[in-house]
């Protein structure tokens, strides 16, 4: 789950990490009000959860309270990569001498967290890795020892710092690690971490992605994800509530399957035969009829979907349950769109019988089914 910049900055500030002083506004008049409490010049930043906000024109500058109000109005009426801007963060502009990078993420091979720092910041870490790989300092964190000030100072020395700045950076890095642990973050970044002209360090931007699987320990964020503003589409929210893994894609062929790997391979096979998947939807293992029906309803609700491919390989999932779910959904919402069904595995014969008797044709090969659904999406069937 991605946090907004303002949420991330509030967390950092509460943990003693300096951030630029700022406040949130959801209307131009509120922007004026909060700007009057801050010192100009200002930076006005659109609060959206998509990357590349700066390049898309989501960060503006203002020298006066009036201008801040105007720029806020501009942002609040614009869309960034299709996402409407609902709030802006207005902050005091800092005098930056140098932009750095510091973040913590997971290291799959070492089965640990890894701290990453760079004396070059302000662009995506992958870009830094391509343009200045020698500047990147990686420190795998031993899970049993944790990450302490002295580890952090070692990294700061490698970044070229000394004296008081060494202790300042050490403290900031160590605190960021504490935030990472306390909030179950899978990624936490200060990018840029600004060195000001006075030689102080300030998190000019902050990004936190929480581990979805740990949200049971952070109920307030789970609530925000499901009920409030989030990066999820309506279909994705509906799926999350029902414990289904759904991802909206650009195409016109709806896909439902069991098991993430199988569903991914199904999308790939559709693409291989020249079709375009409209979504990823994994019903998981052992899905009962009701869950299949909900899945179908979600996919049907996407207006771009022209045809649906249901690919089930029954291990713990029972084909007869799937068949009943399909018929249940069809009875409730009407079979408005053509479906291609591939059903093999546990209770396969019973599943096929149920569907065939209801006039639904069932295929056995994933490739044949993929070719068929691509054809239907192109020519509208038959």
């Amino acid at each position, binding site marked *: 789950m991605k946090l907004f910049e303002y949420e991330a900055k509030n967390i950092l500030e509460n943990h003693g990490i300096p951030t630029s002083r700022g406040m949130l506004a959801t209307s131009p008049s509120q922007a004026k009000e909060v700007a009057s409490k801050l010192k100009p010049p200002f930076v006005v930043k659109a609060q959206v959860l998509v990357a590349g906000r700066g390049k898309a024109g989501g960060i503006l500058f203002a020298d006066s309270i009036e201008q801040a109000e105007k720029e806020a109005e501009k942002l609040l009426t614009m869309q960034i990569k299709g996402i409407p801007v609902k709030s802006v963060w207005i902050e005091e502009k800092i005098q930056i001498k140098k932009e750095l990078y510091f973040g913590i993420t997971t290291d799959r091979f070492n089965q640990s967290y890894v701290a990453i720092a760079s004396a070059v910041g302000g662009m995506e870490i992958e870009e830094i890795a391509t343009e200045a790989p020698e500047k990147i300092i990686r420190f795998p964190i031993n899970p049993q020892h944790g990450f302490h000030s002295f580890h952090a100072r070692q990294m700061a020395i490698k970044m070229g710092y000394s004296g008081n700045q060494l202790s300042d950076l050490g403290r900031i890095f160590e605190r960021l690690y504490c935030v990472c642990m306390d909030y179950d973050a899978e990624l936490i970044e200060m990018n840029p971490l600004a060195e000001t002209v006075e030689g102080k360090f300030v998190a000019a931007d902050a990004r936190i992605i929480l*581990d979805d699987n740990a949200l049971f320990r952070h109920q307030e964020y789970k609530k925000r994800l499901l009920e409030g503003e989030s990066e999820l589409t309506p279909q994705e929210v509906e799926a999350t509530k029902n414990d289904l893994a759904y991802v909206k894609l650009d195409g016109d062929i709806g896909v439902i399957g069991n098991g993430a790997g*199988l569903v*991914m391979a199904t999308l790939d096979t559709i693409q291989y035969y020249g079709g375009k998947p409209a979504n990823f939807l994994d019903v998981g293992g052992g899905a009962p009829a009701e869950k299949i029906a909900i899945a179908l309803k979600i996919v049907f609700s996407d207006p771009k979907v022209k045809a649906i491919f249901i690919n089930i390989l029954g291990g713990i999932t029972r084909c007869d349950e799937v068949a009943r779910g399909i018929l249940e959904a069809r009875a409730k919402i009407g079979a408005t769109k053509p479906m291609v069904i591939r059903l*093999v595995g*546990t209770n396969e014969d019973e599943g096929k019988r149920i569907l065939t008797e209801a006039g639904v044709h069932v295929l056995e090969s994933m490739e044949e089914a993929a070719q068929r659904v691509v054809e239907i999406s192109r020519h509208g069937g038959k």
Partner: protein
Amino acid sequence: MGIIIDKNTRAIVQGITGAQGSFHTKLMLEYGTKIVAGVTPGKGKTQIHDVPVYDTVEEAKEKHSANASIIFVPAPFAADSALEALEGGIKTIVIITEHIPIKDAINVMACAKQVNATIIGPNTPGIITPRESKLGIMPAHIFKLGNIGMISRSGTLTYEIAAGLTRKNLGQSTCLGLGGDPITGLNFVDTLKMFKQDPQTKAVVLIGEIGGNLEELAAEYIANEKYPKPVAAFIAGRSAPPGKRMGHAGAIVMGKAGTAESKIEKFKSAGVEVAEKPNDVPELLMKFVSN
């Protein structure tokens, strides 16, 4: 033969009284797996499918000389169960549970390293050595004894490919799922090393997916070691957009890292045959393994 588990494996089931634990205990017993005891705190001194249930791993291990464990405990408590097994001296642990927080998984793996234990998973279908032992939830009938080792990050996709191999009479030595999470116990390289030592295994299939760099590291290992057995691979997620999590917690492309293209390219340059579609895998192996 095969790797990690065989007919001498004596396993306990942690979370044996839950719906999944109980259901799969029955199937594992039917397959011939030696399930010697179960553990569910508070349900000690009961029985399920004639398997005695204990409150603690310590007691179950002591009374039945268990040397492996399979865990079905719900995510918030699964790490605790794994740590209990590790402290109890169990050296092979299969964690079926999905949705374990990353922080908990990292802690479990660190403890496992200290005591030299092998962890399979979390979020794995488990491991099967055909005709000997199954510690997992995979449908047994699609597997067949043979010479192909399978390593996968997926569940049902593994079944899809295993069933395809079996149809072509290409049996398997051991099939194991690494798990769909970002942090797992075994990785491709660890498992390739094990298959290298196993005389029964004549060829290896790797089933990877987007996210992380474990496939890339496996390709490097194969190239550097001049791996002595033929390897074929399939990578799921060619059509996945960046920044979106495709079902598995670990299946996500971050920026340019973890794409299917990167993995496929690395494999090809390491001399690994890469299948375009899941059902092309048997074809690639036919030439290496004669029956």
